[in-house]
């Protein structure tokens, strides 16, 4: 290109992450003499992979006010040292930031961050995380929600409906599960007890 410029923006196809490229340039002077080609190779950075959320799982009700967010580690094609960002929002639109952190050093297999603010009881929160290789941030993991509920949280009966045509022998009772009733919860719910009262007498029933 006839020009005295000493710079040009690459205008070809978008360079691909993780690809090694070669650059060569030469210049010509007013005597129509070309320089020899100066060259270098460069590599397009690869994004770290998306971390996988481990805890809390989506919709988990936590019984501890000290909340720790945990993700499994990302990987990086260039083998760069990774750090992590965590963010916590108070709404699902994720425009109301509660707290965040960046630069969390990577753990052995997983990386965790203990949320640094006191979260409100029985209020849903949304969180996510992403990795950073020192050059670029990776994609955010899919968002997850959780609720903190450290108080006793009995199951709440949602409805009682009669089973028709059985002469009044059966009713269907449904209730909200206990806040502790989760597969990964530290508190294990082994059974629910349902009580009925007939003429002031209560009868214990096993199961649901």
């Amino acid at each position, binding site marked *: *290109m006839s020009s005295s410029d000493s710079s040009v923006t690459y205008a*070809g196809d978008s360079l691909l992450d993780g690809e090694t490229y070669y650059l*060569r*340039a030469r*210049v010509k002077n007013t005597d129509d003499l*070309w320089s*020899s080609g100066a060259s*270098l190779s460069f590599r397009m*950075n690869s994004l770290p992979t998306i971390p996988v959320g481990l805890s809390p799982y989506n919709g988990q009700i936590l019984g501890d006010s000290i909340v720790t967010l945990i993700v499994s580690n990302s990987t990086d094609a260039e083998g760069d040292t990774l750090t992590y960002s965590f963010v916590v929002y108070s709404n699902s639109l994720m425009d109301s930031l509660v707290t965040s952190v960046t630069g969390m050093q990577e753990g052995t297999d997983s990386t965790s961050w203990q949320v640094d603010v006191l979260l409100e009881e029985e209020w849903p929160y949304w969180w996510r995380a992403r990795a950073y290789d020192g050059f670029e941030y990776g994609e955010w993991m899919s968002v997850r929600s959780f609720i903190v509920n450290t108080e006793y949280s009995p199951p709440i009966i949602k409805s009682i409906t009669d089973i028709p045509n059985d002469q009044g022998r059966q009713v269907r009772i449904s209730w909200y599960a206990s806040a502790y009733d989760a597969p990964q919860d530290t508190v294990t719910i082994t059974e629910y007890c349902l009580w009925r009262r007939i003429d002031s007498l209560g009868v214990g029933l096993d199961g649901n």
Partner: protein
Amino acid sequence: MKRNIELWRIVGLIGVILTLAGTPTMAQPVIHSGETISYTISFPGAVGSYIFYGESGNGVVIVATETGGSNIFLEPEVRLYAPSGVLDATAWDETQAMIDDHNLAETGWYTIVVKDYEGDDTGTLNLSSVTIPGETSMGVVSGQSMLGNIDYKIESSAFYGEAGGGVVIVATETGGSSIFLEPEVRLYAPSGVLDTTAWDNTQAMIDDHNLAETGWYTIVVKDYEGDDTGTLNLSSVTIPGATSMGDIVSGQSMLGNIDYKIESSAFYGESGNGVVIVATETGGSSIFLEPEVRLYAPSGVLDATAWDYTQAMIDDHNLAETGWYTIVVKDYGGNDAGILDFSFAKMPPTLPPIMNPNPANGDTVDIAGIVLNWDDNWGAIAYDIHFGSGGQFPLPMVAESLTANSYPLPPQEYDTYYFWYIMLKYDNGEEIQGPYWWFLTYHPHPFITDLDIGGSEDIGHLVTHHPLITWSYSDPETLAQTAYQVQVGTDDDWAVAEM
């Protein structure tokens, strides 16, 4: 139709005659020595005319070649008119008309007329002209090879020769035996007289030939019949003179690139010495190069020669003269290319009086900071340095009776072949001339520093997908940048670039 042809011929010749009367007008095109001009006879009877300035006693070579090869009917005719208007010489041929071996009798503007011999054919011809002495189309000097384009024309070159010296001139077609160009070499003495000529199907050679005059000789190379095209390599070595590979000492081997050309070297031999010279193709029997070695005595006489399919050897041979011998290696048939290893041994293996030049023979060097130096093996007490460019023969003496074996040169010209030799002086009054050495200066080119991409980004982890490419331009002569070329690719095959 015949009548029209005659009419055009009359009109054309009247025009030429009017031009020849008196001093030619400068409106007529000038053909310079070493130049080839294309002329189209666009209608029957058309003539072209060109002028050149010649001096009484000059030699001249004028060649008109039809450009269509042998399949057209144009018969080139060239007619040379002296400044007085007198017809000086004429020639015609079915494909290539040539006036040569001809000395000019007058001084002034000569006119060359080109036409179809019978005036009834049309076509295009190339008119080539060389005056002797005068400019030539190529600049081949001793020890060099240069590519000549015989595209229905001639090429010309010149060298300085001294009476009694020898010369080896080889013209080799570069296409091997698959093309039809038949190289022809014609050598003209400084007086313009045709000295000797040679032609062959693939490689024409003039050698074993002593020059009778001193001055600038002219070489003309062409296709023998003028009806084929192609390229040829013109190689020449004067004896004494520079060689392509420099001098060789006993026990040494060199690699010669026989790429449709010759290579040459020199050694110092004394009468009675035995020599063994072996040239071996390096590709084994899988290539077709047939090594040939030709040994020339200091007087220029062909002393010995040998060739073989794979290894040529000169041995069981004693030298008859004392001085710098010249070795020429080449392909025997001139139609194959390859690398030759040639080795030299001398009995006894005495060192030459001088060796190891700096700059090394054939080096390409910067114009500044050149320091000539050499190894003196025989203990000369003083040195005269003869140095000059290819156009400065005989080489002028630039330093006399130096006692040190080095000599710094002032900055030289760009892109120029320089030649030098040392005259060694001994305390017994004897003087021995060293071999001719040569080097080439290069024209400093601009260069790029600080080529970068992506600015402050790490080039091992570039983030921007359309990054900025930057460089710094430098030029030793402080000339400005006028253009750039940038390529980005996924490998170092620059033919496949994304930009």
